[in-house]
């Protein structure tokens, strides 16, 4: 049995000929806040669904809290201990949030009425109005309330703040940090809002076309990752294992380097290149460099390699 909160090994899912997730290796330690990033259709939601038994893997395995979601008995134990907010956040239209709370609490032994009441007030949810009559933002808040009051050890959140205004996004993030991160609960969150991810996550994984392009500590990205722009003729596609991405734009070549950028730049100079810039990268820039396809002359990101399973030192 693994001590990881979430562990996947070679996890793959295909829908016909279309591979949604390919050979995904994740290891998320208990207490980690893991931002799962990727473009639309990258495979984030499918991965989350596989962890919750909603979709069966084609290949590979997954463990959540050491339990196998493909086995029904173990899945039931996972679902007792894991809270999930789906992308669609669709609940019963005829029910009021108060009724949904009553309905939901019966499923979870660690449900907290206090937390539910506090969240209802904090998120300004109209508890007596039918769910179908609520705005999209309020519907999202109800879905979050149900997940957060569950007392779960692991939160799996699929774009939890979609449709919320900035004040509510801030409120949700603060709630996550105060009530969950501070208590050492594991959060596995997908989001397109990289600012939010930077605010709460300590780990990020970037997925593209079902493959994990990069997995790293956010701190490491800030401190170590650099963008190296070089010019010159006949520059190599990738010269080092530390090169995460290399793209070509005319005579210029952009390298995203995971560590020792200066040494890498010196190597390039040795090959006759002129180094134009070495600059630190934010999460947004890194993400765009990794997944952007519109750079001319490159079929995707030639230097990108599947990320290794993280060591969590």
């Amino acid at each position, binding site marked *: 049995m693994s001590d990881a909160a979430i562990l996947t090994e070679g996890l793959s899912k295909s829908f016909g000929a279309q591979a949604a997730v390919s050979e995904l290796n994740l290891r998320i330690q208990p207490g980690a806040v893991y931002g799962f990033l990727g473009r639309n259709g990258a495979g984030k939601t499918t991965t989350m*669904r596989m962890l*919750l*038994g*909603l*979709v*069966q893997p084609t290949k590979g395995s997954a463990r959540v809290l050491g339990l196998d979601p493909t086995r*029904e008995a173990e899945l*039931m*134990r996972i*679902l*007792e201990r*894991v809270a*999930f907010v*789906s992308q*669609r956040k*669709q*609940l*019963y*239209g*005829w*029910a009021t949030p108060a*009724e949904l709370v*009553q*309905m*939901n609490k*019966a*499923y*979870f032994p660690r449900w907290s009425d206090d937390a539910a009441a506090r969240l209802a007030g904090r998120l300004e949810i109209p508890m007596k109005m039918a769910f179908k009559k609520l705005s999209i933002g309020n519907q999202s808040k109800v*879905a979050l309330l149900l997940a957060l009051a569950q007392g779960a050890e692991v939160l799996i959140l699929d774009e939890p703040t979609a449709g919320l205004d900035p004040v509510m996004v801030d409120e949700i993030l603060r709630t996550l940090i105060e009530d969950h991160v501070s208590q050492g609960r594991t959060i596995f969150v997908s989001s397109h809002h990289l600012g939010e991810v930077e605010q709460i996550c300590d780990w990020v994984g970037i997925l593209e076309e079902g493959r994990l392009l990069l997995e790293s500590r956010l701190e490491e990205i800030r401190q170590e990752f650099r963008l190296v722009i070089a010019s010159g003729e006949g520059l190599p596609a990738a010269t080092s294992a530390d090169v995460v991405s290399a793209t070509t734009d005319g005579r210029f070549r952009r390298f995203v380097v995971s560590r020792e950028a200066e040494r890498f730049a010196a190597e390039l100079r040795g090959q006759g290149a002129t180094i134009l810039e070495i600059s630190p990268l934010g999460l947004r820039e890194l993400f765009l460099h990794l997944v952007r396809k519109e750079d001319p002359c490159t079929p995707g990101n030639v230097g990108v390699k599947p990320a290794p399973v993280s060591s969590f030192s």
Partner: protein
Amino acid sequence: MYAWKCWRETRASFIFLLMLSTVPALLVTLGPGIKEQSGWWHFDRSEYTHNPFIMAHLVSNMILTVLWPSSFLSAVFLGVTALGSEFEPGTIEYLWTRPRTRTSLTWIHWSVCVAEMVIVAIVPTYLAAVLLGTLTRYWDLPFLLMAPWLMVIVGLPMLGLTTLMTALRRSGKGGLIFTAAVVTVYVIVRQLVTVPLHLNPPTLFAGPLVWLMNNNQFGATSIAFPWGALWRAVFLAAAFPLAAQYLLKRAEV
């Protein structure tokens, strides 16, 4: 709590079906006594006491004629709210991430629907029977007392079929259309086979109701009880939801 959710979701249909069955059953029971005289309507109980035996059986036959479709209607109306109907609105993701097995959810819904079908069958029939017995002072009404249970047994395959079709189509509306299509095709095929060939095959599972209607005429028990149809009803009542359970267990969201 899922049982409560099923009840909340089927409550409107249940009340509608209950009214739809009870009001006609009571009207049919009281109908023979309602008289018009010089432009005034009044209730004449002597119609019931004049010949209670004939009146009891005549009225109970009328009650059964009015009530027999109610179990099929209940089955279809309630069946379309089965687990498969939650795919279309997207609530299935919520439901299937609660720590309950898909099998248990399928059968909880089925149980709630069966309970409602029993009430929809029993309440109007027994209310009418009590009213009829009181008016005629003749209480020997075995067919009327037996009727709701046979109606429910015969309705169960329809509940199962609708549950299966809803799972197959992943939609309440789609399930309803497919159930109607299956029933229509069955009736047409049966007619195509029986009429030109002058065959009279036994009914698939509605035999007990046919027996009830035919035998109730003045209590003459001339036709043997169709045990074969009853067992087929019981078999289909179990087989259809089991097939739905199999489909749902393997379904992906």
